[in-house]
């Protein structure tokens, strides 16, 4: 026990003293944040109108009420008043996106509103171009203002005025976005954290001849295996966590929508953490075993690649099925089970049996893997091959 702890402390010290490894630990998270935010900003700029944009277009029979409401809302316009007869000519400019809008008010629109004795219903026409962001945005603004004007005049009662009364929607929406994307994303992040660490820690030590120095001390091979697995799993978990924070901070920007992570309570976060720990242990153990066959870090990374592809494929399952599997036997399949279980937690559809099977299966695989790694460390053909 004591020796395991000594090894863990040394491994941590080693990673935090090696600048390259620090970069490997934290860079993915930082990169994700920067790239996603940047992408989000670009996407946003494509679907939203700049703050100081001046809308251009034509208006027929200008309504002062409409104009003053726009001013109140601080929306800048540069509209040319034209005669009804010229509408057709200017439609071309909307079509080819030179101007944003043509609004056609009925004659004496404002006056007619004062005397609500109209027999016929008046019609306001707004011509716009949905392929131009500014145009369709102004169309929405126009609709909103006109609706407001209309409801002020004929208002009898309001329903749900002024705020969002839809309580279920946001949660469901967040949950559905999260449960569709995050399980896969979390698996990828954890796996890439692992691949940055495991080859270095096992094959790297072999390559540099530093593991042999440990093997001539009274340290048991099993203690070395456990110490290595525990320490590099923790580091991979930290790396995964940093990436996860990066995702959560930049994700809302990316999809231009507020993801509400607070819809999940302590129970969900605890279960997610449990599953992720079991995943990290298993992935690190597998990569450590594969790395122990390699003579160099490079070789180890090459050996791991095919496994990585397999792991990624298994981690994509819910992206395709869009629901969690029911058959409990399927939860014995590593990586697949993590993806499925995370999906069910994120979508508030936890099946306790499947969850327990997932965690226990992964822990059992880890323990078996540690046995194997112990054998590897004791195997001179693997440790000292030429």
């Amino acid at each position, binding site marked *: 026990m004591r020796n395991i702890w000594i090894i863990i402390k*040394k491994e941590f010290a080693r990673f935090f003293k090696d600048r390259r490894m620090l970069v490997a630990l934290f860079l993915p998270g930082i990169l994700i944040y920067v790239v996603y935010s940047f992408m989000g900003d670009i996407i946003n700029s494509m679907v939203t109108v700049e703050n100081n944009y001046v809308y251009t277009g034509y208006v027929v029979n200008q309504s002062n009420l409409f104009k003053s409401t726009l001013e109140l809302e601080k929306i800048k316009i540069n509209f040319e008043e034209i005669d009804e007869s010229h509408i057709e000519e200017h439609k071309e400019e909307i079509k080819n996106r030179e101007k944003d809008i043509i609004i056609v008010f009925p004659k004496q629109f404002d006056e007619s509103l004062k005397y609500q004795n109209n027999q016929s219903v008046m019609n306001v026409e707004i011509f716009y171009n949905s392929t131009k962001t500014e145009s369709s945005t102004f169309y929405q603004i126009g609709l909103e203002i006109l609706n407001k004007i209309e409801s002020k005049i004929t208002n009898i009662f309001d329903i749900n005025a002024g705020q969002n009364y839809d309580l279920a929607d946001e949660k469901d929406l967040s949950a559905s976005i999260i449960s569709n994307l995050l399980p896969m994303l979390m698996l990828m992040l954890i796996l890439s954290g692992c691949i940055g660490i495991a080859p270095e820690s096992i094959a790297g030590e072999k390559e540099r*001849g530093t593991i042999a120095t440990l093997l*001539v001390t*009274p340290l048991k091979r099993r203690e070395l295996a456990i110490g290595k697995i525990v320490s590099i799993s923790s580091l991979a978990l930290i790396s995964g966590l940093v990436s996860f924070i990066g995702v959560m901070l930049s994700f809302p920007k990316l999809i231009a929508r507020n993801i509400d992570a607070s819809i999940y309570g302590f129970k969900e976060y605890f279960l997610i953490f449990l599953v992720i720990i079991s995943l990290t242990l298993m992935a690190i153990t597998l990569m450590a075993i594969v790395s122990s066959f390699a003579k160099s870090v490079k070789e180890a990374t090459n050996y791991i690649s095919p496994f990585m592809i397999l792991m990624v494929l298994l981690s994509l399952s819910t992206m395709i099925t869009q629901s969690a599997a029911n058959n409990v036997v399927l939860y014995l399949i590593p990586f697949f089970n993590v993806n499925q279980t995370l999906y069910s937690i994120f979508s508030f559809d936890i099946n306790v049996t499947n969850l327990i099977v997932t965690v226990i299966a992964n822990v059992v695989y880890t323990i078996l893997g540690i046995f194997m790694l112990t054998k590897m460390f004791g195997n001179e053909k693997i440790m000292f091959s030429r």
Partner: protein
Amino acid sequence: MEKILEVQNVKKTFKLSRKQQKIEKTNQKIKVALNGLSFATYKGEIYGLLGPNGAGKTTALRILSTLIKADEGHIEIDGIDVSKNPEEVRRKIGFLTSELKLEDFFTPNYLFDFFSNLHDVPFDIANERKKRLFEKFGIDSFCEVKVANLSTGMKQKVSLVISLVHDPDIIIFDEPTNGLDVLTAKVVTDFLQELRNSGKTIIISTHIFSLVEKICDRVGIIINGRMIVSEKLNELTKEKNLEDVFFDIYKKEVGEE
């Protein structure tokens, strides 16, 4: 005289990969590195394992230090069976070879503490030992410099000191002066004699006759994985010097094949 190490009829073969077959210029799949090696070492002496390159010296010392296992044969160190109780053996021995490296990211100071810890040396004793050894080898001046930034000679000094953190009774050094500058080599050989005088048993491998003549009490001549003679140095060199004795034996051995 008390026997402290006994090697009986040890055999070790290596499977050769294609690549190795090319390097060794052979088409045999198996390389016999040790072919029934036997010898004994007595308490308080420096034993020199002398032989040409490829004779099997490193292989023998790796087996003694439990890094690899013998295919056949029996080895006892201080009454402990090496194959049955390797961890106990590792507590008793200090092993040094050029292939045991120290991690670049740590300072000599950190490494000494780390290995002392693994050997379960009490804190006070470890500190006192560190002070003494660092002073002796002049490590004090760079004890807070990361291994990555040390010269080869400095690294070797640190490796040597690290192999002694637990003050082992039996010290096994593979080619101890190889690659050292003359000054460091002298510090090492003087130190080995000092250790012997304080009652430690030391086994070194080498292909340098003068080193054996200078510090060894007993010498074993190993050729093609077999111990040809293992005798007290002064007995062996009664009539001829070591070099002549060696070549007489060598001609006889290699000529026979």
